[in-house]
């Protein structure tokens, strides 16, 4: 079951200009990211990330400084699949990082490397 942890939020950073306090990264978008990223570890400027996030899929904000909306296809997103078989991923966007726990997704990303 995918889950999400608390985001990293460093005190003292300015709030996201959009004030939303939310990010828009979804499991579907991560899968899309895997398809775009040759390495499966990083992706940039892929569209469709604003698709509705499935319940419980991810995320949390922490973007303090750079706001923006992933409907802006210029926004870069980087995904870091942790080592081991734990299924943890970090999704980076702007100045935010969101921890995602999704062993299935992590496994699929790794399979793209084969």
């Amino acid at each position: 079951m995918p889950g999400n942890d608390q985001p990293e939020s460093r005190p003292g950073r300015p709030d996201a200009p959009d004030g939303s306090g939310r990010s828009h990264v979804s499991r579907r978008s991560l899968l899309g990211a895997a398809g775009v990223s040759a390495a499966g570890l990083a992706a940039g400027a892929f569209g469709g990330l604003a698709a509705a996030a499935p319940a419980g899929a991810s995320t949390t904000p922490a973007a303090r400084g750079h706001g923006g909306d992933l409907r802006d296809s210029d926004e870069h997103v980087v995904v870091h699949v942790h080592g081991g078989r734990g299924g943890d991923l970090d999704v980076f966007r702007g100045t935010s990082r969101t921890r995602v726990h999704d062993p299935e997704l992590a496994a699929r990303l790794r399979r793209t490397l084969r």
Partner: protein
Amino acid sequence: MSSHREAPEISKDPVADSTDLYAFVSPDQPDTVTLIANYIPLEEPPGGPNFYEFGDDVLYEINIDTNGDGDADISYQFSFTTKVRNPNTFLYNTAPILSLNSGSWNRRQFYTITRVTDAGSEVIVRDLACPPCNIGPLSTPHYDKLAAEAVHALPGGGQVFAGQRAEGFYVDLGSIFDLGNLRPFEELHNQFGMHVFTQPAPGVNDTNQKNVHSIALQVPTSALVASSTTPVIGVWTAASRQNVRLAGAADAQRLDIGPWTQVSRLGNPLFNEVIVPMGSKDQWNALPPSSDKNFASHVANPELAALLPILYPNVFPSLAALVASGKPRADLEAILLTGIPSGIVPGFTNFTGTVQADMLRLNTSIAPSSSPNILGVIGGDLAGFPNGRRVFDDVVTIELRAIAGLTYPLVDSSFTPDGAASKVTDGLTPSSVKAPFLSTFPYLGVAYDGFHNPS
């Protein structure tokens, strides 16, 4: 050095490397405090064609703790933006730069200041101009004027400068890092049996005629203290980079993304440099002062205190006995980690509480000295280090003497320091700095130009 290249990782990232921090009641504006954070160690003035500049990808901060918990209550954040007029030339400038908006200056840098408190963040000013680097008599013929133009008034009082200045920290690097040699006493060094030195020699200032990049901020004291009854503040500077860097990203040369992560920190001079062991230096740079209890044992039993009696046989017998006793150096813990409580030094305290945190502690209620002593508090001048730090304070000598045992009687009156503890020095003074310190903001000397320096 004070904190130049003091840890393995940050030594490879000079743009983010904090080198010195100063905090003092402004001598010419005593209702204000001046905070100066220096970055980019050992700039060679002729270092073109890509002259030194702040990192657009680095978040610089000057942090102030007002309640003694080792966490920031006030942060001044500085973020920089470089603007290139003409990317089709390799030149920094195409004619003399006579003003900050000179059309012949090709690569300019601007900055925004954000003040962050628990109540939120506020952009104080945007797009302030940095001065160019001091290149030489053809490119920057009136550099004093250019540097002065880059001093900007702040709304609400105070002023700010960000750009190149002359390095003011004087230290005999070449000697000290040659196995703890001090030229004025080198004949007393054990020399590992090689008999290289037979007589004392004058110190050499290895940072002379080098520049740094300074962020100098002068603000009303009332903007920094919690109240007039709590005049002591703790200050440190930090630099952060974003978590992830992609080299050669598809549509950019480089992509930085993710939360800001601290990569450099500096409070008291030489703390990470000579107190924290090598295996912990990078970790220390990534932590806030409130975590410093984890490093307190290195203050209580500093490695250098044990080395001095070995390197200088029979010179520090009392220090050797103190080290052998295993007694913690409560004097150093007070100076570096908590501030000095009242009742220790007559008429003085910069105590912030029991939380052990490496911060430069400044008692803002102590007026500037009309006749400063470069040895600060141990020289009888309560307005100097370790009560904050002025640009001319001889922090190398002060800390050498403190570690050698000179300050231990503050916590143990039965201890008699070695005679050498009040004499040990690397042999330098402010006169060892070619560019004179200024009596007005930003106090550090005008940057050396690359045509005449080094000479």
